[in-house]
């Protein structure tokens, strides 16, 4: 890499600025940045703009709602092809996540919530590599925050009901049988866990993975394209091709991450709910 490219890359990586004319001739490289994630469709550059990720989210709800309602309208004991697919997804959430984590006694009332979380996150994550959409909705932090808030409110409400009031609920956060001097320390830690750490990590994990994954793909694809077309010599062109090929590998890696994050988000939600409904700590 020539020093000019490096310097312009580092400059623009920080600034995310628009393309600017380079004095040396030709266009300088515009590194992908945070600005690539804001994509308003209607309403311009404002707080109330209707963004493309919003549209994608609504489309995903439409697709999911249509598919699952159509597929579950006529269910048979012996499944057909489509019902088999539905049962695979639903059975994964129902048995692997909900039943195993929450337990057979309480899991059924949380199934709609967990199934919504899983399918919504999964489909919107997969949109990150589905052609024509190619943008993971969850890399916009508003959506992970919404989902996390739902989980947050639900597990607190369920916990309050299960423990029977605010005081027993707070008390239940501290594990029993600790020496007296540890109790205040543990209380602070548990309080922070329940009220701050859990929601923040839940939202940020999903957002961060999707954001970073998409940014990584952007860097490899946009950078590779730039090196190939504007690199100026064969070595940089070859590096551009290699970068493009590597982006394909990274796309498959993204597929794994996308599924994994949907799974992790749902299983953590189930874990928090299991914690809330359990008798003891």
């Amino acid at each position, binding site marked *: 890499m020539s020093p000019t490219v490096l310097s312009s890359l580092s400059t623009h990586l920080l*600034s*995310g600025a628009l393309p600017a004319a380079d004095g040396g001739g030709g266009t300088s490289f515009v590194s992908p940045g945070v600005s690539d994630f804001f994509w308003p469709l209607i309403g311009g550059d*404002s707080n109330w703009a209707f963004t493309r990720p919003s549209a994608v989210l609504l489309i995903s709800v439409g697709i999911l709602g249509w598919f699952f309602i159509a597929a579950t309208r006529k269910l048979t004991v012996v499944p057909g092809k489509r019902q088999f697919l539905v049962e695979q997804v639903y059975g994964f959430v129902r048995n692997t996540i909900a039943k195993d984590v929450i337990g057979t006694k309480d899991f059924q009332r949380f199934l709609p919530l967990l199934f919504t979380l899983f399918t919504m996150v999964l489909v919107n994550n997969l949109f990150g590599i589905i052609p024509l959409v190619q943008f993971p909705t969850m890399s916009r932090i508003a959506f992970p925050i919404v989902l996390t808030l739902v989980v947050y409110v639900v597990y607190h409400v369920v916990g309050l009901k299960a423990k029977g009031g605010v005081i027993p609920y707070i008390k239940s956060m501290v594990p029993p049988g600790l020496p007296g001097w540890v109790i205040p320390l543990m209380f602070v830690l548990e309080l922070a866990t329940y009220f701050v750490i859990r929601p923040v990590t839940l939202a940020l994990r999903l957002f961060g993975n999707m954001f970073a994954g998409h940014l990584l793909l952007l860097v490899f694809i946009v950078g590779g394209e730039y090196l190939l077309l504007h690199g100026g010599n064969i070595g940089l062109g070859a590096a551009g091709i290699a970068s493009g090929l590597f982006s394909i590998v990274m796309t498959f890696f993204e597929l794994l991450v996308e599924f994994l994050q949907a799974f992790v988000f749902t299983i953590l939600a189930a874990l928090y709910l299991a914690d809330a409904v359990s008798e003891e700590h």
Partner: protein
Amino acid sequence: MVLASVVAATTPGWPDQLPLLPHPAELIVGVISFGILYWLYKTKVVPSLEKMYEERTAAIEGGISKAEEAQAQAQAALDQYNAQLQEARTEASTIREDAKAQGAAIVAELREKAQAEAGRITEAAQKTIEAERQAALVQLRGEVGRLSTDLASRIVGESLEDETRQKGIVERFLSELEAGEIKPERVDS
């Protein structure tokens, strides 16, 4: 330049330098989307899937009990069949022995009958022969008597002085008798 770009980016509206700040419109869309999907799942998708799971459990349990029942029935049928087979075998052997015994009895009876018949026929033949013999004897005796009287009258009628003559008469009589010239006549009738 960095500072300028940040300022330039923040001034029109949405701060694109702060990706951790949620976009308000997206928050609203997110809440609405979640609400819609949750409502659809809660009212339609999950209940029908759970119902299907229950039906399947019931069907599997029912199927197992049905299979057990069928197996028991099959076993019962097999037992019954074996019993019937055994019964049929013993019956067949009984029938065979009966038939043998009956056959032997029939043969013996027939032989006895045949012997009796033969005896009866022989007896009847003997009786007939005896009767005919008696009849012949009676007839012969009468004829001999008549012939004797005939002969005696002839002998008495003729002169019995000459023994030789008498000898000649008898011889003539006998030859006449042989030639059939003398018709037998009943004397006592």
